[in-house]
C-alpha cells in the first residue's frame, strides 16, 4: 500500500534520510526502530508531506502522493501521531475527533455554521464516542486538552488519528514520556485498534517490548539508512543492529 523509494533528505551537513526504501502492505504493522537521530521522524515527515524530501518517491496504493500537501495526504487515508505533541490545547477532547471527522464531511460549510447547522451529526458523535471509549477517554471527553497530562494527550492524538479510519497510521514514539504500565496498556490498545480496523501501521518506538508486542515486521534505521529488516527476533540478532544500538563491532 505504502511504497517509499530512494527517499533522501539533507539538513545542512546532516544527511537525515539517505535513500530509504520502505513498504507497508495493507493491514500490516511495521516497526521502525533505530537510535536517536537515525532519521525516523524525518522519514515520517517526508511521507506525510511535512518536510519536502530532496529526492525519492512516496506512493500510496500506486498513486504518487509525493507532491501533495499534508492535508490532502491526510484525506487520502493517512493518520499520524507526533513525537512532540501536536494537540489543540483549547479544544475539548471530543472536539479533536470532531474536527478530524468533519474534514471529510460535506456539511463543513461557512453558511451552515451561520445558520446554526454547524453542530456534529448524531452519527458523527456516535463514531467519536466509540473511539473515545476504545481508548478510555470517555470520562474526559469534554475537558480541554490543555488540562490533561502527557499520557492522555498521546491517547487524544491516537484517537484523533484513527477516528477517520485511515488506511495507514504513522505512530511516532507513542510511548515516550509514559511509564511502564501506561506503555503496556498503549501497546495492547494499538495492536487491537490496528487489527480491528485493518489499518496498515508504521510504528516508531524505542521500547522494544512494545515493538515486539505490536508489529509483524521490523525495519531498523541508522544514520538515515535502513540497516536491517525482518521479523523482530531475526532483526534483533543481526550484527548491524547490535552495532547501531550498542556500538558493538
Amino acid at each position, binding site marked *: 500500500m505504502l511504497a517509499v523509494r530512494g527517499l533522501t533528505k539533507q539538513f545542512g551537513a546532516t544527511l537525515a534520510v539517505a535513500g530509504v526504501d520502505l513498504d507497508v502492505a495493507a493491514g500490516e504493522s511495521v516497526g521502525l526502530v533505530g537510535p536517536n537521530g537515525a532519521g525516523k521522524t524525518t522519514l515520517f515527515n517526508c511521507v*506525510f508531506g*511535512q518536510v519536502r524530501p530532496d529526492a525519492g518517491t512516496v506512493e500510496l496504493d500506486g498513486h504518487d502522493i509525493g507532491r501533495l*500537501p*499534508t*492535508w*490532502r495526504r*491526510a*484525506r487520502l487515508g493517512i*493518520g*499520524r501521531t*507526533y*513525537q*512532540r*505533541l*501536536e*494537540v*489543540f*490545547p*483549547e*479544544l475539548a477532547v471530543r*472536539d*479533536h475527533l*470532531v*474536527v*478530524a471527522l*468533519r*474534514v*471529510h*464531511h460535506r*456539511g*463543513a*460549510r*461557512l453558511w*451552515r*455554521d*451561520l*445558520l*446554526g*447547522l*454547524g*453542530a*456534529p451529526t448524531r452519527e458523527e458523535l456516535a463514531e467519536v464516542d466509540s473511539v473515545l471509549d476504545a481508548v478510555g477517554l470517555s470520562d*474526559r471527553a*469534554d*475537558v*480541554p*486538552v*490543555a*488540562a*490533561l*497530562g*502527557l499520557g492522555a*494527550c498521546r491517547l487524544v*492524538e491516537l484517537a*484523533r*488519528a484513527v477516528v*477517520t479510519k485511515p488506511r495507514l497510521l504513522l505512530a511516532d514514539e507513542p510511548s*515516550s*514520556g509514559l511509564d511502564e504500565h501506561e506503555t503496556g496498556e498503549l501497546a495492547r490498545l494499538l495492536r487491537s485498534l490496528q487489527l480491528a480496523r485493518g489499518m496498515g501501521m508504521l510504528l516508531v518506538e524505542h521500547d522494544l517490548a512494545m515493538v515486539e508486542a505490536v508489529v509483524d515486521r521490523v525495519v531498523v534505521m541508522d544514520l538515515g539508512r535502513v540497516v536491517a529488516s525482518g521479523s523482530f527476533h531475526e532483526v534483533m540478532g543481526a550484527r548491524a543492529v547490535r552495532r547501531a544500538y550498542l556500538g558493538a563491532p
Partner: protein
Amino acid sequence: MEQLLGFAVPGVPYGCAYAVFAVGLVLTYQTTGVFNVGYGAQAYVSAFVFAWLVEDHAWPVWAAFVCAVVIVGPGLGLALDRFLFRRIPSSNTTAKIVTGLSLLVGIPALLPVVFGNQNLVGAPSIVFNPDTVYFHLGADVPVNGIYLSAVLLTVVMLVVLVLLLRTTRLGLEMRAAVESPRLLELEGVNARRVTATAWAVCGLMAGLAGVLLAPTEVTVQAQDYVTLMVAAIAAAAIAALRSMPVAAVVAVLIGVVSLTAQGYLPTSSFWYSAALPAFPFLVLVGALLFVPGLRHLDEAKDPLSSVDPPPPPPAARARRREVDRLVRTGFFVLLFAFVASMLTWMPPTWETVMNQGMAYSVVFLSVTLLTGTAGQLSLAQATLAGIAAFTAGQLAHHLGLDFLLGGALGAVAASLVAGLLAIASLRLRGLGLALMTLAAALLFDVAIFPAQAVSGGTGGITLKPGWLPLNLFAPNGHAYFLVVLLVLVLCTGGVALVQRGTVGRFLTAMRGSELGAAGVGVNLPWQRVLAFTLSGALAGMGGALLAIQQTVIAPGEFNYQLSLAFVVIVVTTGVGTVEGAIQAGIGLVVVQQLMQYAPQRLQGLTFVLFALGALAYAAHPEGIVELEKRRWTERAERVLTRRRRAPATPAVTGRP
C-alpha cells in the same frame, strides 16, 4: 558624480540610524529568541532620560550619559525580561509580538506625560558637534558631526557585537540559551542568568543607540520611531535575522537609496509622493516573500522540548448551570436597559460616545475572529476599515450611491483585499505574517490613502446628507443608533455561530497546532484565507459605520497606529470571546470620554492604558476583563455552592 554624492551622503545618517536598530533587532533575536519591536521604545527611553537630565536638571553630560545608558538601558532590559518576556512561552508568537508592540506604542506616549513635554532636539551631542563641518567630500559635500557620529556609532557597535557573539564564551552561551535552555543547563550553566544578561546587553545597546542618535534629529520624535523600526525590520529581515553586518549594510542602503532617489525624482511625480515613502515597506514585503529563512522564524528548535506537556489550561471553561443562567439573564436585562436608555434619556454626548463604541466593537469583532479564534495576527485591521470607508465615500461621491449600501460594498472590497493579503502571505506564519500585514498597512498609509482618487486629498471626504436616506446624522435622531445596533447584533451573532460551528473548530485547531490540523486533513491555506476574508468584511462594516459617525473620512484616520491600538485593546480586554470585542469597543470610547474631564496632560493616556494592559496579556492570555469575569463567576459559584451545601465538583480535573 558630485550631484550623486550630494544626494547620497545625507542618506548616510538615516541609513546608520536604521542600521543601529536593525543590528539591535538581530542581536535581540539571536541572544534572547525574541523579535523585540519594542527595541525602538527602549532606545527612546534612554534618549529621553538623557535629555531630561541634561536640560531640565542641568546634570553634567557624562553623568546623564552614565545614568541613561549604563543604568537605565540595561535596567529596562532586565525588567522586560523579568516581568514580561520570561513569562511568555517561547511558542506563543502572538503574545511576544503584542508585548513588543505595546511597548512600542505605549512607552513613547507615556514618557511625555510622566516627565512633561520634552524637546529632544536640543539634546547634547556626546562625540562630535552636530553643527561643525569637519571636512568636505569631493568638492563641496559637507560632512558634519551628525554624519560622523552616526557612522562611528554604527561601525563601533557592529564590530563590538560581532566580536561579542562570535568569539566570547558569553556570546556562545547566549545563543545556546535560545537554541535550547535545557541543553545549556545540562552543561551546568544557569540559562536564566544567561538570558537576563542578554537582555541587559541588548538594553545597553538600545540605550546607547538612543542617546547617540538623539541629537542627529533623525530619531527624536516618538512617532518617528515606528517608521524607523520598519526600515530596521526590513533590513533585519533581509539578513534573515541572522547576520548583523548584512543587516547593517542593507539598512544603510535603504537610507542612501531613499535619499538619492528623493534628490533625483521630480517632486510632483507619483514616485516622489507615493513610492518613495513606501520604499522601506516594499523592501520588507520583498524580504518576507523571498528570503527563505523568514518563513520558519518562530518554530521551536529545542530538541528537548518534545517531552513537554502542553501548557496548563488558561481557564476552566465549564460554568455551573445556575451561574450561566444568572449571567445570561443579567445580560439581557442590561441590553434592554441600554437600548431603552439610548432611546430615551441618554444625553446626546453619551449617545454619540456609545454609538462610536458600538461601531468600534464591529471592527474589534474582526480581531476576535482572526486573532482570537484563528490565531492569526493582523496589524492591518484599521486599514481594512479604511478601505471600506473610502470605497463607500467614492461610490457616494461619483455615483450618488446610498452610503449604507456603499458601506456594504466597501466591506466586500475590504474582505477581498484581506483575502488577497492572506493569499500573498500564505507561506508566512506568526511573526512573518504580522510583519507582512504591518507593511501592507504602512503601504496604504503612505501610498494609497493619501491619493486624490481614494481620499480626495488631505481634506478627506466629507459626508453629505444626501448620501443617506434617513436623518442619521442628527445626534439624537436615534436612526444611527438603530443601524449600528442592528449591524453589531448580526455580526456578534455571526461570529459566535462561526466560533461554535465547524469552521470555528477548524480555526481553533489551526491556532492550537498547524501541524496537527493539517495532519487530520484541515485545508489550512483555505481556512486562513477564509478567516482573513471574514475578518476583512467585519472590519469593513465597522469602518463604514465609523465613517458615518465621524462625517469626515480623512486619509490619516485609518492608519497603522490605529491598527496596532486595535489589536492591543482587544487583546487586553479579551480576544477569545465576542463579548470581549464589545467590552473593548465600549471601554475604549468610555475611557476616551472620561479622559476629556482629566487634566490636559493626561489626555494622551488612553492608548497607554490599553497598551500597558496588554502587558498583562503575557500572564493572562484570555485578557484582563475575561480574567476578572472568571474570578467573579468563580466567587458567585462558591457562594451558590455554599448555600446549597452541595459537594463542590471541580469543572476540570487537574493534571496528576
